[in-house]
């Protein structure tokens, strides 16, 4: 299982302080909208806590009144009071509450197309993984990756979303709201993470058999570290290979893996599946399905369909254990 690093979560302000500690502890989690690590998510978490407080008050008032009228003060009362109750409770109160809520809620309606600080990332939903292209400002060609998102902290990044086959939805709860991904149409989302760390994202729109396993990790990095990482991501795959990895590279070629996967700098230029040029540098395998141990690589190669139902990649279970290990060594070494 991918394990998220511990991190300091941005605390929702003011009202949350009144809530008990266990409740707050219960809000933690790598995929929690209540442990925000970005500007957009923090605003929404505050919105939630305020609305929750209001909702609790209204819930108690309404049901308290009902209990009072049916159990405590059951005798008949004046009809004038009753009419005021309808006007006050049914019209005035909701009007005031929802007007206030709308004014506030819509004023923070994030503009999904709002301009970023330069970096743009194109994410395409595939069956069931994520094709990712980084377009730094002024770039003429993208840096291609898959199944993880890296973002510079403190900067607003634009995400351009689309999909290859069916509708997906792109969502990193700790950083902000979700946005659907359509075939044949582009949607936009911009995010400004504030806390460096690792967060989990997941497809939110049902997209078929392996919807449950269409996830990824989002790494928020200090801007300098991000720039270094992006520079390292560009360019061909590394060529210095161990003996096992060299054998694995041969198996990769023999099994025709290059028909679907690209490893830049080699003859493998398939585009059906994820780009594997730097697969070894990623923190999950199979779009958030597994960790990155050697065993995980072997399991993925030989039991693909068991791990991810109806996935398009066939299981290479005819490989001997030694062959699978060599292939795993090769891929894992592509950092």
């Amino acid at each position, binding site marked *: 299982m991918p394990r998220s690093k511990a991190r300091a979560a941005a605390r929702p302000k003011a009202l949350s302080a009144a809530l008990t500690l266990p409740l707050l502890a219960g809000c933690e989690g790598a995929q929690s909208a209540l442990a925000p690590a970005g500007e957009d998510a923090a605003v929404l978490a505050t919105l939630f806590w305020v609305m929750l407080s209001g909702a609790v008050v209204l819930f108690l008032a309404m049901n308290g009144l009902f209990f009072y009228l*049916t159990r405590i003060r059951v005798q008949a009362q004046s009809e004038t*009071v009753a009419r005021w109750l309808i006007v006050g409770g049914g019209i005035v109160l909701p009007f005031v509450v929802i007007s206030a*809520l709308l004014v506030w809620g819509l004023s923070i309606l994030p503009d999904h197309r709002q301009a970023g600080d330069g970096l743009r990332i194109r994410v395409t939903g595939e069956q069931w993984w994520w094709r990712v292209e980084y377009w730094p400002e002024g770039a003429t060609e993208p840096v291609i990756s898959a199944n993880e998102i890296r973002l510079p902290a403190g900067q607003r990044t634009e995400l351009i979303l689309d999909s290859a086959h069916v509708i997906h939805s792109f969502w990193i709860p700790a950083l902000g709201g979700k946005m659907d991904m359509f075939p044949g149409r582009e*949607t936009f989302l911009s995010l400004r993470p504030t806390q460096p760390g690792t967060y989990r994202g997941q497809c939110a729109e049902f997209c078929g058999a392996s919807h449950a396993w269409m996830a990824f990790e989002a790494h928020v990095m200090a801007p300098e570290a991000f720039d270094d990482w992006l520079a390292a991501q560009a360019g061909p795959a590394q060529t210095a290979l161990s003996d096992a990895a060299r054998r694995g590279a041969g198996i990769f070629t023999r099994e025709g893996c290059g028909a679907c996967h690209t490893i830049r700098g080699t003859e493998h230029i398939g585009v059906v599946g994820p780009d594997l040029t730097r697969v070894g540098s990623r923190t999950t395998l199979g779009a958030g399905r597994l960790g990155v141990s050697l065993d995980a690589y072997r399991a993925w190669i030989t039991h693909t369909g068991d791990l991810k139902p109806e996935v398009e990649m066939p299981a290479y279970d005819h490989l001997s254990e030694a062959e699978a290990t060599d292939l795993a060594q090769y891929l894992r070494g592509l950092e």
Partner: protein
Amino acid sequence: MSADKAALPPPDRRPLGPYPPTPEMLAEPVPEALQRAQADRLRAAWRTPKGWRYWTAVNNTEVGKWYCLTALAFMLCAGVMALIIRLQLAVPDNDLVSSDRFSQLFTLHGSAMMFLFAVPMFEAISILLLPGMLGARDMPFPRLSAFGYWCFLIGGTFVLVSILFDIAPRAGWFMYPPLATQDEGPGSDIWLLGLSFIEIASIAAAVELIVGALKCRPPGMRVNMMPLYAWYVLVVGGMILFAFPPLIAGDFLFELERSLDWPFFDPTRGGDPMLWQHLFWIFGHPEVYIVFLPSIAIAAMVIPTVARRPIVGYSWIVLSAVGVGFLSFGLWVHHMFTTGLPSISLGFFSAASQAVVIPTGIQLFAFLATLLVGRVTMNLPMLWIAGALAVFTLGGLTGVMLAIAPFDFQVHDTYFIVAHLHYTLFGGMIFPVIAGVYYFFPFISKKMLSERLGRWSFWLIFTGFNICFLPMHLTGLLGMPRRIYTYPTGLGWDWLNLISTVGAFIIAAGFLVFVWDLLRPKGKQPQPPRNPWQAGTLEWSHDIPEEAWGVRSIPHVTTRYPLWEQPGILERMDAGRYYLPDAEEGRRETLITSVIDARPLQVQRVTGPSWITHVAAAFTGGCFIFPTFGYYWPAVVCGVFAGMAILYWLWTATARPPEAERKDVGLGLSLPTYVSGPDSVGWWAMWITMLGDATAFASIIFGFFFYWTAQDDFPPDGALHAGAGETALAALALAAAWGLVLLARRWNRHGAVTAARLALAGAALTAATGGGALALAVWPLDPTSHVYPAVICAIALWICVHAALAVVMHLYCLAGSFAGKLTPHHDADLCNVALFSHFFVLSSLVACAVIGLAPRLI
């Protein structure tokens, strides 16, 4: 021209005699012997068939009971699916069921709860209760209710059983394309065709309920005196009429894509999956209120009884219910907040979604106000209402949160939504419906349910529900998306899911207790009092022991709570002092009154037991079920047989010239036995049906303009258009068909029977010509190549099918004229066909303009 019949003057169809009845007339006793003789004749006319013929019954009490029990059974099946879903999610990385099976389970759970339980249950309960509340003997079209029930049984069973063969639909209950269109196997077709079949039955029931509430009220019960339940029936029936057709239109396009590869939702050929989302949610959001309002209606019946006084704010409640009905059609986009629509749309639909709080709030506070001014005596139904209030307010409050678009960006498609929708549906449907079951059970089955078991099942369901669904809010906020078949550990979801699963089984235990209480044999139980809750509305005038006639005589009503406010009404009803106390001809009859002020207009002969409804339902079922597996010819054959069965049924049982033009209905009042045009129930049913039909057509036209606005190249440059000449010919011919029908009605009424027959034949010919010309106009287009020719062909197909229907109707009237069923003074069929023609000519001209003109202009 034969002028023989014109020689006779038209029969006087005005009501004759004193109305309203004076107190002296009502005070006059009915002789005992006469009472007994009348009761015997009435009993004979309304006798429920015995033995295996029992299943031919069409009486609202029988059909309503079957309908309720079937909907309950479907609900329990869907509940078992939910339990399997919860078991699978109880622990992380579970492999109890496969991903594929899990998708089938949640798709069918949602679809069945919505289409096989929530909406049919409302219609079932209303069919069962409405005639009682209105003091009517039956619904206006009993065989239509029976037909609808058998369709529901066949279609529902078909859809549910698919899961046993591992071929159930599996794209989620809102079937988003392209996932659902691309899905291999018959799952999506089962959903589309099986549920369309049921939707059509639902619309039929809605038509009948609307006509029932408008035309079958007792004399004197003006609209502002109707029981609130009847108002809700009207509002909800109207909503069904406008909400289901967009979905049916969507299903039509969807199935054309599945079967014939017409690319409505395929972006690679100009289609757009967003069109389905719009059509689905234009249906889907009103659907929520279609489910919720009837439950409010039950509360509106229980609360005055509990408070021992009339409801406070009757007009406020009615206006609010109507307001909710209207508003609910303007909110659908809040299901699509995360699809990247412009912020201005999000803001508008956020505000509209919030606005619905006000009419909902007025209704809830009017109930509280009634409790405030009354002297409350709690009873078991009220306990369930209390539970409903607690659960529903929580669901409503999370709804207010969700309507704020930015918050929805976070929790949309998560377990927060799952929690929210179950809170609204349990609070807004399950709890009130069970309250209704406990409240109305003595009326329905003349027995009481157990107080002790009722409390047990309440507390089990109430606590189980909150244990199951309250934690789900947090599960969703912690990031768990809905519809995942399993999840990894370590995200904070494990405990919450386990707790939810435990809660689900507590709910199930509560339902077991409830169902046991409902179904356990109660033979030895003494008969309950006639009005056990001391309620004020007419249904509690029911007979104990049971009688199939509905009411012994149809009362004159002058108050909202006649049993409280009209002393002596019960005794007079029982004595047969009021209207229609007798069945001299041994025919089933009920009273038809005017829409607004319920003046008596007509004695309506209603249909009795028959097998024809089963035959028609079975063939209609075949017509929908065969195409699911790609058997198109058997489907066509079934369709033809279904049509023949329905024609036989209409021919033998509806709009037959009566043996006498008028009859005495009691209290000196004499009413016609045959009316045509706006006074008749058939005309109203046609009018209401055509509103739904026009809505479906408008939805397809909406599709055309949706593509036009959403795409830069629609129609694509150089696209082949439909033939202009043929389209113009079609428009002319279809307009001529309309003119000829109107002439036929006019000439027939004036006794020019031969001319009328010629006009009808001409109408059939021109309608066929028009349909044919339109088919020729689009014949050269290749609908599989691009969405533009596809949508043009879909519009043409719709018109051609209606033209074929029109031809059948014209020939039916022609045959009726020759057979003496349609005469100058008995022209109800022709009036109804003329009404159909009004709608059809409008939609034809719109279609021809869109097909022939619009693409050349835009």
